[in-house]
């Protein structure tokens, strides 16, 4: 069963709710190694993105995601704004004109989104950033989809991979973003951006699981 426009909207909304719920937690993670604003920033941005989606319904998934990305860029600020904004804009570009998505559309789009983050932020794996959640997630998704899994099953795998990547930031020395100023003292802390990125993947798999169940 292909993914519809409404499912994509549901994904963004589910992520927005997850951010809302985890706002204090994300900010607390950011206090330890950053500047105590990641939760507030993400919440501000995704509240606006959801509002934007509600105000301008349609059926072009690509256009909708691009709109989300642009809203994030103009509402979040900080490192998160350009990075999450680029992620959604690049996904949107990859899905331009589509109103239904198959599993490999998802894989392609997610990869494009993550590549966008990498190009913009110039970070690599194991520098303790959101990429530590996103890159393993893309790889898991591609592998699962390539092996013929359903999107829903693949997203479960991707979410697990994101969670693993998120946890793997704990022992790392941060090399990018604000946490990098701490050098060795960044060891032992989970990266806030990797945590929000894990929640992003989890929102996707939760939404598709609900869809299947219903």
């Amino acid at each position: 069963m292909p993914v519809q426009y409404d499912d994509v909207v549901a994904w963004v909304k589910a992520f927005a709710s997850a951010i809302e719920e985890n706002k204090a937690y994300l900010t607390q993670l950011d206090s330890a190694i950053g500047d105590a604003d990641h939760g507030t920033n993400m919440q501000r941005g995704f509240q606006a993105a959801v509002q934007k989606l509600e105000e301008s319904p349609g059926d072009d998934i690509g256009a909708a995601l691009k709109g989300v990305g642009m809203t994030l860029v103009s509402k979040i600020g900080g490192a998160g704004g350009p990075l999450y904004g680029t992620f959604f804009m690049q996904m949107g570009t990859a899905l331009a004109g589509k109103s239904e998505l198959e599993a490999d559309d998802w894989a392609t789009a997610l990869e494009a989104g993550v590549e966008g983050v990498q190009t913009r932020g110039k970070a690599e794996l194991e520098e303790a950033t959101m990429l530590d959640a996103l890159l393993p997630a893309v790889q898991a998704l591609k592998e699962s989809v390539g092996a013929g899994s359903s999107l829903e099953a693949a997203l479960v795998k991707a979410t697990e991979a994101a969670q693993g990547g998120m946890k793997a930031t704990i022992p790392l020395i941060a090399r990018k973003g604000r946490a990098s100023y701490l050098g060795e003292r960044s060891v032992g802390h989970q990266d806030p951006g990797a945590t929000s990125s894990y929640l992003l993947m989890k929102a996707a798999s939760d939404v598709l699981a609900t869809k299947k169940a219903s």
Partner: protein
Amino acid sequence: MKKLINNPEDVVPDALQGMQAAHGDVLRVMIDPHYLCRADAPVQGKVALVSGGGSGHEPMHGGFVGPGMLDAACPGEVFTSPTPDQMLEATKAVDGGAGVLHIVKNYTGDVLNFEMAADLAREENIEVEAVVIDDDVAVQDSLYTAGRRGVGATVLAEKVCGGAAEEKRSLKEVADLCRKVNGNGRSMGMALTSCIVPAAGAPTFDLGEDEMEIGIGIHGEPGRERISLAPAREVVERLAGPIVEDLSLQQGDNVLAFVNSMGGTPLIELYIVFNELKKLLSGRGVNIARNLIGPYITSLEMAGCSITLLKLDDELTRLWDAPVSTPGLTWGA
């Protein structure tokens, strides 16, 4: 959380309204997207200077808008870099046909947002140069990390470049001067207490009653090391030592010494710090030719200070002395 605010969400808009109410004669505050610009912007034929960054560092940057310093400033949420649309609108509003210099503090967020803004402005045929300030010696400088933070030298760069822009020097010249200030300026800060981000509502870090944090960032990002409370003399050695070394200051050099309050430290303590700094530099034959002492780049109500040294030559000294007339810095005008 003990703050003179209404709601945490309204901190930035309320303060901006206050700035408009107080300084409407020199600047205009624009809302949505937020930016502040000179009341007489755009100044035709003058390179325009735009800076910006998270709020919570007042008077930087909004308080430095006015003749002789910035043409516009973009305030983000507290400690959050502003967004490209703010920067784009500010850039368009102040461009007087001679190009726009973006003065960017080296934080991932500031750099990325200003990059996007510069791209957008260039698409609208505005000539934009960006200079990234990275003067904080507390942070290891490395190609493989986010690099040094931009702190105190930003204030000095904004003043010096503002003076040069008033002289109608070209965008390239003003940008080169900004790079020169960045090359000759180094800073380091320390904290006695943490700040509280209004929306977070709790201290960003916990410091024991007998501890201080050396090498702190202006967003309460933890520093180089946490040590026991020490006298001002020792604090100054720990801050100024690495700066003097990094700048390779020599006997006979002239510097501008900037002793800054992080927000919660009062002036009487800054003078004690300045006195120790003067003794330390005198001991090495370095002359303090100019100084700036006060809260100019703050970190909300954090108690602590930072020291910035800028190696001076005649050009920098002259431009530092040039008239400036902003809410935060005024002289000669």
